[in-house]
């Protein structure tokens, strides 16, 4: 049987002069690491569910993408994290949203899928579920990068002035 894997780290990526060469290189490096994490499992007989979880965890841990560490800030300057996972073999799925603390939201989604009592839980209940399952939780500061702080401040300035922000601010 064939195996295959594809990933994305978000759209809305701006022209190539919008980030430093080091930032582009870092993003490409972490995309490669995500592919390796997922593909290593597929190549050794791991399931597609294992592979997508492993690939997403790498990108959640990277500051270059809008998920986990490096996630966008909402209007209150808080991180609210959403994630889901679905198994095409069984149509089982798990999803969480509005998490303030789960280090790797996709892991919580996977555990919820396997738990089976619900497909989707949100807010403080999602954070409690993750903690009860032994997943690492973090303070909000763990998820924050200076890039996201700057983007939120710029959007607030544009909103106050009634001017258009950049795509980098609009997208994560």
């Amino acid at each position, binding site marked *: 049987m064939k195996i295959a894997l594809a990933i*994305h780290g978000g759209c809305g990526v701006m022209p190539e002069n919008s980030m430093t060469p080091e930032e582009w290189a870092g993003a490409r490096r972490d995309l490669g690491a995500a592919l390796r994490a997922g593909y290593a499992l597929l190549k050794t007989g791991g399931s597609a569910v294992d592979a997508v979880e492993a690939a997403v965890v790498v990108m959640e841990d990277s500051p270059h993408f809008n998920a986990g560490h490096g996630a966008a800030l909402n209007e209150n300057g808080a991180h609210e994290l959403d994630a889901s996972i679905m198994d095409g073999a069984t149509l089982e799925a798990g999803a969480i949203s509005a998490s303030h603390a789960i280090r790797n939201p996709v892991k919580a989604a996977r555990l919820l899928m396997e738990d089976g009592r619900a497909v989707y839980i949100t807010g403080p209940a999602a954070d409690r579920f993750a903690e009860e399952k032994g997943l690492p939780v973090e303070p909000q500061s763990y998820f924050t990068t200076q890039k996201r702080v700057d983007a939120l401040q710029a959007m607030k300035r544009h909103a106050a002035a009634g001017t258009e922000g950049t795509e980098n601010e609009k997208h994560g």
Partner: protein
Amino acid sequence: TVGAVALDAAGHLAAATSTGGYTNKPDGRVGDSPVIGAGTYARDGVCAVSGTGKGEFFIRYVVGHEIASRMAYLKQDIAVATDGLINHDLAPHQIGAGLVALDAQGIVAAPYNTPGMFRGWVTPEGKAFVATHEEVYEVEL
């Protein structure tokens, strides 16, 4: 937003998506990423999909499930089905949107209507590539 789709050696498909939403999003806003059928969907024998972009539209168009339906019922291939959603249905709303998808044979589609999209894929032959814009880089596995 980040996401992944995979086909394993047993022929099973899966999809996953994770996100922080977007900068300055309303307090309590939930996008498409955790909405099964919208930002994330997988069905064996058909496709696996993970989306990125303005989630409200992914929810309204039920993008993941819509792609699977076009493939299953209209017999569209994955390139046609995904292009139809991203570049025909969503593009007129002038919203940024993209996705990665795999069909049951491991064929990858990664359309987007923004200037770029962080993406990567491994072909069934075992070659790996990453890209941000048009230029594609082969990477070691």
